[in-house]
């Protein structure tokens, strides 16, 4: 299949990629752009470890063909969090509340937290749980992740 060229704003910087249109966004990020912070946990959109934001919306990058992401799209991955106020706030909250164990789900989990707090700075506990229901974690029992998001939200208001 003919390759496509796309220009995206990834973590605030313009990047150009050329690849087959059906190449997974996850592979473009990890293999072509060496952004290995985003993880592959299942490859079929069930675990959420590969969650990134495309134009502010959380998507599972293992199910997104690169050709489907239009020119000019803004993509935020875990590597870009430190460059944002909300990202740094969430990172500190995750650390302080003990939300991290093995860490493999965290790059996806924290992107879902970011997407939630960006559109809703005062989420209820149920809203937090719904917003992260697509991100599996096998270590924590989720308690401290919920607490971290609540804590970050409390700092926003």
């Amino acid at each position, binding site marked *: 299949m003919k390759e496509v060229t796309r220009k995206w704003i990834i973590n605030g910087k313009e990047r150009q990629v050329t690849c087959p249109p059906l190449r997974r966004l996850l592979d473009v990020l990890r293999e072509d752009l060496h952004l290995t912070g985003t993880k592959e946990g299942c490859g*079929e959109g069930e675990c959420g470890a590969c969650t990134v934001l495309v134009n502010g919306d959380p998507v599972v990058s293992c199910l997104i063909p690169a050709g489907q992401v239009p020119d000019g799209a803004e993509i935020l991955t875990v590597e870009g969090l430190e460059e944002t106020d909300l990202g740094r706030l969430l990172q500190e909250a995750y650390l302080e509340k003990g939300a991290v164990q093995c860490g493999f789900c965290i790059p996806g989990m924290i992107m879902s937290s970011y997407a939630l707090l960006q559109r809703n700075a005062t989420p209820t506990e149920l809203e937090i749980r719904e917003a992260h229901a697509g991100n599996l974690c096998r270590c924590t029992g989720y308690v401290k992740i919920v607490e971290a998001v609540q804590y970050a939200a409390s700092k926003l208001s």
Partner: protein
Amino acid sequence: MAAVGTSVPRRDGREKVTGRTAYIDDMSFPGAWHGVVVRSPVAHGRLKGRHLDPAFDWSQVVVVTPEDIPGENLVHEIIKDMPLLCDDEIQYLGEPLALVAAPTKDLAREAAGYITFDIEELPSIQTLKEVIAQYKTDEGKLHKFCAQTIVKGDIEKGFEEADYIIEQEYWAGHHEQAYLEPQGLVAVPGEDGSVLIEGSMQCPYFVALELLPTLNLPPEKLRVRQAPTGGAFGGKEEFPTWLGGYVALMAMKSKRTVKLIYDRHEDIRYTTKRHPSWSRYKTGFKKDGAITAVKVEFFLDGGAYGTLSSIVLARGVLHAFIGYRCDNVFIDGRVYRTHSFPCGAFRGFGAPQAIWGLESQMDLMARACDMTPHAFRLRNAVVPGDTTATGQTLAECEACGTVLERTLEKCDFEAKLARCTRGAQDADTWYGVGLAFFAHGSAFTGDGEARFKAKAALDLALDDAERPVVLIRCSSVEMGQGAHTVLPQIVADGLCADLRFVQNPLPDTALVPNSGPTVASRTTMIVGNTLYGAGRKLKAKLEAYASARFFESQAAILKDSVFSAGHDRVDFEEVALAYLKEHGPVRVEHQYELDPKIAWNQETFEGDAYPSYSWGCNVVELEIDRATLQIEVKKVTGVFDVGRVINPMLAMGQLEGGFLQAFGYALLERIGVRNGAYDADRFQTYIIPTMLDAPPFDFEFMEYPYTFSPPGAKGIGELPIDGLSPAVANAIEMAAGIRMTEIPVTPESLFEALRKQVKS
């Protein structure tokens, strides 16, 4: 300032929240080839031949077959019966028959498709249900891997003394560890014939030692490094040894770096799971509730090979009657073969299966003698001074029944019990509450720690910025549980220096002594104490040096990172720098000393089964929708004694995470074997709990330190997965008036059970 007892934030946390932590699949290995495993398509058969189709250009790839194995074609686990690559009788679907390495994964997969096998298929027995049906009719035809009994008193006399005798069978299914990072290893061949294996694992020395006879390498030619590990839970205990064998053989033959990273589907299909279990409890007791006889048949489905099933069985039988008094106990444990993927380690290691039966049976007995579940347990719960099934006298420091009493008080159990609907037909929603009380043995069984002789070391050295640093050297890994935060906390206190001076690099078998595998709830207790001892030794060494160098031979004391003698003070950094300048880097090593009072007979299973026990009690409250039979756990309350709590925040994380795995085991994670293969083999069908499924937890610790081993921790890793299933089944009976005897309990299985109840 003591570091132990404080909630120091996880020290590997910042790297993880920034995405900088490089797990094995994130690391760069330029020019690396990719490996695939070529597997048996049948569950049982005889391998007659192998063909490489000449239509494929084989010069582009490397194929490894059993003839390429330089040493024994055997995986050296406890039961040595499994070949690394099958060359004769195939015992399970998916058994590795060959390996292919190629420059790309696609090419390796394509090549694998051009390998065909002549196989004579043989009849197979694939599930524990078939095994138990056979056992009840004609046991002789079954293949038994191992057996272990525990005998206390006179079981027949115990039944004669009983007013009531109750018998019940309990089933538990497979259980997948479901670590979020799939299995993955890389092997790098050296020009001198050596091999480096790096990747996701719990036990670097298992890989480094067990593969030597297979690869026919001397110890110095096989080096193993752990990479950051994205969860393990037992799933990366023994399995990486197999995977290490595959990847090392491909690297040795191709003379190239070879990567073997499973995707989720392959990981669930072709890695070890928790052993399915069948147990039959026959118990006798008096009208006043005193238990007089406990007879348990505890059988496990080992899968196709013995591997480490004998140890899982040992831990299972040791937890099959625990926490209660009884003078007459007979436990008959066995592991049988099925032609399915070999079962292996998973957090709890036999104990969750055992306690599932025991704590269900306790409720049955309570009801039979018209006592409440808690009154019956309090009547029989051990107190310090009582003896266990193996004849071990429990020490004064054990919490035993106190966690039970505290849990009852904490959740107001009695009041909740009064609200239970007990199958009332006029209720729209059924409500029930259930209890379980349990213990988990800490560290290796019996005198295992004395025989193992765990060693750990501290290196005083300069870091990259030329500052003094104390490096922890042990083989115990960080896999999410917090070892690389908790162990430095313990070292800091042993040394009496600030935590900032202590670092914990990932283990590399070329650099670290063998502190043992990261298993058996032993890391904080055993390796922590060993490192504490090393810290004491380093403290003494530096005090002696400081005395001579800074204090004109007055005795110096190191406390809170400051050396002092009389009124003179010099800080830790200055002394350490002076020492390093004069003597260079130094290593102090320490070996764990087991309490010499521990006496254990490994043949008869009599004596002190564990150096210490952790104790737990949990109460489940749930509701059942009468229309859908959806079971909603409203709350789990629990109280736990894990000895001295080193880091309260991380310890609570262990409880919460372990409990959610137990929740999945009890209610969600159904996986069967159909035509030799798992019938739920991806995250679309193998359902682990999401954030929306997770119930609220209300947990607390009661600290009864293990006084023999400072700083006094006991095991924490496995305890939280032990007691939820029976509490769920007990709550379901209180809610719906029906006894569920197989986990997971699903709305479908509850519906079937209720329908049968109505019919009868």
